[in-house]
């Protein structure tokens, strides 16, 4: 039924020990390295103190590391089998949050589980990738290239995205949509369909603008011209650029960032933590952070290329895209290249939800890689 490339594994599932040894340690090393940089940065953000952020972040990372290993060791077939189930469960959670949000005041993005705030939108990023991967895994190229074949996955993406937009969490919604587009693109949806979508987007953008909240409009306008309101919304980005720029090549030294420690830099422990690192460790430090992230993403593509199953490839590509988006949007944002949308820098920014969701996705990626020789057949899910 299943085909193995390597003779030793041919006729049986991998044992837990074998799976463990199959985990790519270079990948995990890079992840741990980033997390350590994160803890160091949080220590500095608290003016050289383990509390309130660095210690808790460390504990969280250890928990998240465990979660990652668990996710990596789960049988790959379970992911395939329960992808849709997971997707619908998360969708129900999103709707629940939406309904709850109308009861409460303002933006409601999470479900309070007492010990942990569950953000369904964060879960949706992963559930969506798994669901789409499963869908395209079982499609023929003909179906993918047909209009009929992409209506269902398009709706699968648009519906939760719409729910997330009205939360309102434009950043996450856009990330979700972008990841979906990338998946659509790599599976082979024709160029002209993207061109069509782009054209439509240009036409409808002014209408969409109308529906944005004032603060969202402000962010975009401020991005286009930070000096527009130097003490209001533009303040963050101006101060971020000053902090970055004044770091120079070698930085001002650990715990010696003036912009961050004198509070000119806002949100230095979350969205603007990269700025703080750049101020204290200079261009050398900030480039190292980007390079480690590039290695992590590169690993992702290597895993994708060497995984034999289409499902596995697509899951890795989707989750990798997701991770890339986090890194790119956050850094581009603090560098003044993108509007301030409130996307944290994974593994480094303080925050439990993103840490857990990113580590879980690393776990899934590792699982795909651990089982790279397993060829998941399309036939059992064939609907042709």
């Amino acid at each position, binding site marked *: 039924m299943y085909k193995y490339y390597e003779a030793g594994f041919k006729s049986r599932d991998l044992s837990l020990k074998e799976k463990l040894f199959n985990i790519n340690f270079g990948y995990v090393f890079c992840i741990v390295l980033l997390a350590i940089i994160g803890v160091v940065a949080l220590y500095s953000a608290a003016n050289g103190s383990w509390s309130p952020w660095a210690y808790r972040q460390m504990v969280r990372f250890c928990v998240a590391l465990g979660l990652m290993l668990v996710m990596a060791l789960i049988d790959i077939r379970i992911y395939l089998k329960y992808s849709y189930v997971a997707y619908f469960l998360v969708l129900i959670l999103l709707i629940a949050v939406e309904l709850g949000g109308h009861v409460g005041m303002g933006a409601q993005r999470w479900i309070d589980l007492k010990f942990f705030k569950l953000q369904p939108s964060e879960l949706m990023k992963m559930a969506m990738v798994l669901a789409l991967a499963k869908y395209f895994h079982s499609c023929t190229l003909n179906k993918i290239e047909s209009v009929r074949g992409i209506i269902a996955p398009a709706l699968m993406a648009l519906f939760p995205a719409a729910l997330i937009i009205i939360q309102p969490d434009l950043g996450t919604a856009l990330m979700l949509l972008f990841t979906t587009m990338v998946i659509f693109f790599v599976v082979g949806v024709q160029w002209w369909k993207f061109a069509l979508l782009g054209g439509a987007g240009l036409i409808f953008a002014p209408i969409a603008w109308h529906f944005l909240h004032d603060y969202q409009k402000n962010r975009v306008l401020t991005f286009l011209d930070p000096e527009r309101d130097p003490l209001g919304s533009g303040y963050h980005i101006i101060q971020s650029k000053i902090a970055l720029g004044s770091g120079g090549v070698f930085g001002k030294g650990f715990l010696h960032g003036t912009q961050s420690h004198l509070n000119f830099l806002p949100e230095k422990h979350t969205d603007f933590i990269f700025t703080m690192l750049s101020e204290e460790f200079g261009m050398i430090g900030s480039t190292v952070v980007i390079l480690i992230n590039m290695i992590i*993403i590169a690993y992702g593509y290597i895993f994708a290329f060497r995984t034999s199953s289409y499902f596995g490839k697509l899951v890795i590509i989707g989750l990798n895209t997701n991770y890339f988006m986090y890194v790119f949007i956050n850094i581009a944002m603090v560098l003044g290249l993108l509007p301030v949308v409130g996307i944290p820098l994974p593994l480094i920014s303080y925050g439990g939800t993103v840490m857990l969701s990113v580590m879980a996705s690393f776990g899934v990626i590792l699982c795909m890689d651990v089982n790279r020789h397993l060829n998941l057949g399309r036939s059992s899910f064939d609907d042709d």
Partner: protein
Amino acid sequence: MNRDNDKGKVLLQRTALVATGFFLLLIMLIVRLYYLQVYQGDKYTMLADENRISTRVLVPPRGSVYDRNGVVLATNEQNFQALVIAEQTPDWKETLKHFAEIVPLDTDEKEKIAKSIQNNKKFVPVKLKDNLTWEEVSALLLNAPYLPGVFISEGLNRTYPLGIYTAHFLGYVGAVSDTDVKDDPLLMVPGFKIGKSGLEKTFEKELRGQGGDVKLEVNAYGRVMKEIERDKGINGQDLYLTIDSRLQKFAQDAFGDHSGAAVVLDVHSGEILAFVSVPSFDPNLFTTGISHKDWNALLNNERHPLTNKAISGQYSPGSTFKIVVALAALEAGVIDKNTTFNCNGSMSLGNHVFHCWRHWGHGKQNVIEALKNSCDIFFYEVALELGIEKIAAMARQLGLGHETGVSLDNERAGLIPDSEWKMKRYGEKWQQGESVIAGIGQGYVLATPLQLAVMISRVVNGGYDIKPTFMKLNLKEKGKIKKLPISRENIDIVKKGMFEVVNAEHGTASAAKFDMNGIKMGGKTGTTQVRRISMEERKSGIVKDEDLPWRLRNHALFVGYAPQNNPQYAVAVVVEHGSSGSGVAAPIASKILQETLRLDIK
């Protein structure tokens, strides 16, 4: 199944494309980092420093002023003030509202603050309230989160413990005005005060000292985190004056309700021991900002409390000028001590009749008797023979007709007329009648009370060219005082006359005489008209001075000195509209001299 291979191939190709795109984007981030951190690094380093470093000017404490015995005349008092920097508050109106809830502000103050904020650059601190109490300061600090941009500054307030007694020579400090020359960054400090008049103004540079500055590291909320650098600056110098505050108070009080001026000098050095101009005002009102009401009251007072009468008041010296004329005549040899003129109450010159104050006349008078009785006819005759030029020359030698150069603003020069002056001023020739009038210190002749004190001092010290000063002279400076070319003998004749004025039985100031264990005073009275007496009035009988309104009454003058044999102190007293030199000015002068002697000021 053929297309399954294609499906994998498409995935591979497109993924490669996406991955390439992602890596290019990440590399772009590194390029951007290079641009910000290396290419524009210097610019942003500067901006970061601007953010974190706040330079504040350190105001040096202003020098104190002491009298000759070390009594404090002017010093500084701790003062807390609240200031606001408009650009550090999101909405200064809101902040001002919160502030007013803690420290009440009236509508006037609010308007003033609003105007000040609007007129100044947004980073300039604007004063909200001065002289905060401890309670107010702590309430403000407690509410700091609701008062962004508001900070408390600990300053020093100028205070004058003796108030009205020192106002006219010390002057006062006040806020820097638009017209002041801003040659010092200190002047830009809000609430900084500079000398506006008097010695405070004259010695501004010395008293002010030099401002320092402190570079502070501040955080985004303006809180000071640490000090980076400090230049302490130089404290203002203290000033030690020649004034004796005890005598000053006594002399000022001696005037009672009268207005006028008095100056007491050390005749050998010119040191000013007391310097009175009454009525006075409280300079403490000015340092904290005087109210409109108080200001108008001072401004509209008919007795001019703001005018420093001792140097700005120019009065006809009247009979006190006879000292000058007598000395000039003796020096010129026009008379000697035995020369007599007969006074029958009037003297004709051309078609003009000049009267003696005693209209039935004094009879035969020599110079000593003429001084003692203040006989006008004697001095008319002498002046006529002497001519104005010689009178003027003596007057100038004795310090009249030009500013004494005492270190105060608004000093007037007085006036000693001569023919040249008249030609220049009126384009007319000098008339003999004018010399006659000048002979009794009337007509064009004007002098300030300080000049009169200098004049009497220079006579009684034996003809030494002393200059009035608020600064103690050292031995070297004392040694530099020149002897004027006036003979000792003639001075003694005049002194004898002045001694008789007070101590002879019918001397004009005999009522003011005293004897402190043999120490007595000499002097000369003067009563000068401030109105013209018409021929009709003279015929029908001159209206008695006390029946006239105050502002038309005669000025009363007295210049005196003591002890009689070895003069130490001189005093000049002018009582505005005091009616009578002998009846009003001489007794005041006498009291002042007695007190001076009693204090035995060294």
